């Protein structure tokens, strides 16, 4: 506890510094995205040209050819198999819900021995198109109407990684909870318990209590703690480049969307009368202003969780893209000497990513707490002022 209290002022003092670093990072990302967009359009143009030439060109594509955008996106995107090393990877189960019911099979069936996508004949004919399961007709072309009926509930790489993080969280937190039972309240925390306690205290004292208030925060603590630790674990797992990590869970829009929707539900379910009053009929304002403000405030209800969703997704994805593109420099220049620059930079960005992993989990949780705080705040004094104005 003492150590952690030491950490907070340092953190506060460094906050400006961190922010400037982040600004630098944003600049870097902006530069890179420009580059990426250009290369995307280039590659699309190339692909179109290649498509025009037909399959012959594809066949001629050598193994040495290297497409940066494709490589990076491949690493960032979800996948049906989890790469371990070399040519070894785990083929994760595919679970499909169609009009003919559920269907479970191994994703191994989607590729042949040369790792090329093939059609799997189940209830329908399935094929991976740009990494996503689609229904195709006999000739192997995409059947758009049928694909819309397809629900892909597969255990993908991200889902598996999510389960790994759930498992880690359960083991770590349940064991530290057991430690409190074993050693009792009076003795100082030990081991894992002493590592978790400052973080829990941080969420309580720096996130929940200042934003929601000491009295009401207790109710929302489990929610905030769960969100914080889930994001933190997935952020850290995403930074590990090999097997137990390697997936880009917290940089996936589906993941951040789910959490943002959870925050949206909790915020709006716990909102009190004065919160809604402030949205639809702002007290203390002229009626015309009230009419003007209502739609803006209503949009705000939705933009808050959407901003949560995009912030986490963009930050984590940007970090991954940055590290990957630095590593890709070696392949772009086709010389091992490029690693002299690429690797130190990748390490540097990796260290920033460690900070960002914590920071984004903190920001997501803090904003969620702030939204809950805004929704549950009592506006006694303002209501009286409003009455006085009338």
């Amino acid at each position: 506890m003492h150590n952690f209290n030491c950490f907070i002022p340092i953190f506060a003092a460094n906050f400006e510094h961190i922010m400037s670093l982040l600004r630098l990072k944003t600049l870097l990302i902006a530069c890179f995205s420009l580059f990426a967009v250009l290369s995307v359009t280039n590659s699309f143009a190339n692909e179109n040209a290649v498509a025009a030439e037909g399959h012959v060109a594809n066949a001629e594509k050598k193994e040495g050819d290297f497409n940066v955008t494709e490589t990076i996106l491949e690493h960032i995107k979800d996948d049906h198999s989890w790469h371990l090393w070399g040519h070894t990877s785990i083929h994760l189960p595919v679970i499909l819900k169609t009009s003919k019911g559920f269907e479970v099979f191994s994703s191994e069936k989607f590729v042949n021995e040369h790792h090329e996508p093939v059609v799997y004949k189940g209830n329908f004919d399935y094929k991976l198109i740009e990494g996503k399961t689609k229904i195709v007709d006999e000739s192997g072309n995409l059947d758009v109407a049928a694909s819309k009926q397809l629900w892909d509930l597969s255990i993908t790489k991200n889902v598996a990684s999510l389960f790994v993080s759930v498992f880690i969280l359960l083991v770590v937190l349940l064991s530290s909870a057991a430690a409190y039972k074993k050693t009792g309240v009076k003795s100082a925390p030990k081991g894992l318990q002493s590592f978790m306690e400052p973080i829990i205290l941080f969420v309580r004292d720096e996130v929940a209590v200042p934003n929601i208030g000491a009295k009401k925060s207790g109710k929302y603590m489990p929610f905030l703690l769960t969100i914080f630790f889930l994001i933190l674990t997935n952020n850290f797992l995403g930074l590990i480049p090999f097997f137990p990590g390697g997936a880009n869970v917290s940089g996936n829009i589906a993941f951040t969307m789910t959490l943002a929707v959870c925050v949206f539900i909790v915020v709006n379910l716990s909102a009190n009368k004065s919160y809604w009053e402030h949205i639809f009929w702002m007290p203390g304002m002229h009626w015309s202003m009230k009419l003007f403000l209502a739609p803006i405030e209503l949009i705000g209800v939705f933009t808050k969780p959407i901003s949560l969703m995009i912030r986490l997704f963009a930050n984590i994805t940007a970090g991954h893209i940055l590290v990957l593109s630095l590593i890709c420099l070696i392949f772009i220049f086709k010389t091992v000497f490029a690693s002299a620059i690429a690797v130190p930079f990748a390490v540097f960005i990796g260290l920033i990513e460690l900070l960002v992993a914590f920071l984004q989990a903190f920001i997501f949780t803090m904003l969620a707490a702030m939204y809950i705080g805004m929704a549950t705040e009592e506006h006694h004094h303002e209501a009286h002022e409003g009455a006085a104005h009338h």
Partner: protein
Amino acid sequence: MLLEINPLVLPDIGLVFWNTIAFLILLIVLGKFAWKPILKAIHDRESGIEEALLKADKMKADITAMQNENEALLAKAREERAILIKEAKEASEKMVAEAKDKAKAEYDRILADAQLAITQQKNAALIDVKNQVGSLVIEVAEKVLRKELSNKADQEGYIKQLADGVKLN
């Protein structure tokens, strides 16, 4: 069009589904078996520490009060001791003076007694000596008289002489 280009911003229903399940499981299991006991334990410890601090403050105040009391008692005891010593000194001095007086009186008495006894014995001795001298004188006188008054004439002369002396008295 933009969304079609970038598959990154298209949420997969599968991950949404599994993530919802995972999150709910975490929320329920951790909420019940981790957050609740941990937060309760931390809260208990904090209130315990607060209580202990309050208790320590109270004890400190108590100790200070006790110290003050002790000092007051000590001062009082010192005062009493001084009084006692003074009184004892006075008493002893008085006793010594009394004893001296008594001893002097006794000495005087003994001295007086001794002087009295000496005087008495001296007197007795003087009387004894006088008596012995007297009897010796009488004896000598008797012998002298017997010798001188052995004849009748002398006897009568002497009686006559004595009788003359008596008459004169």
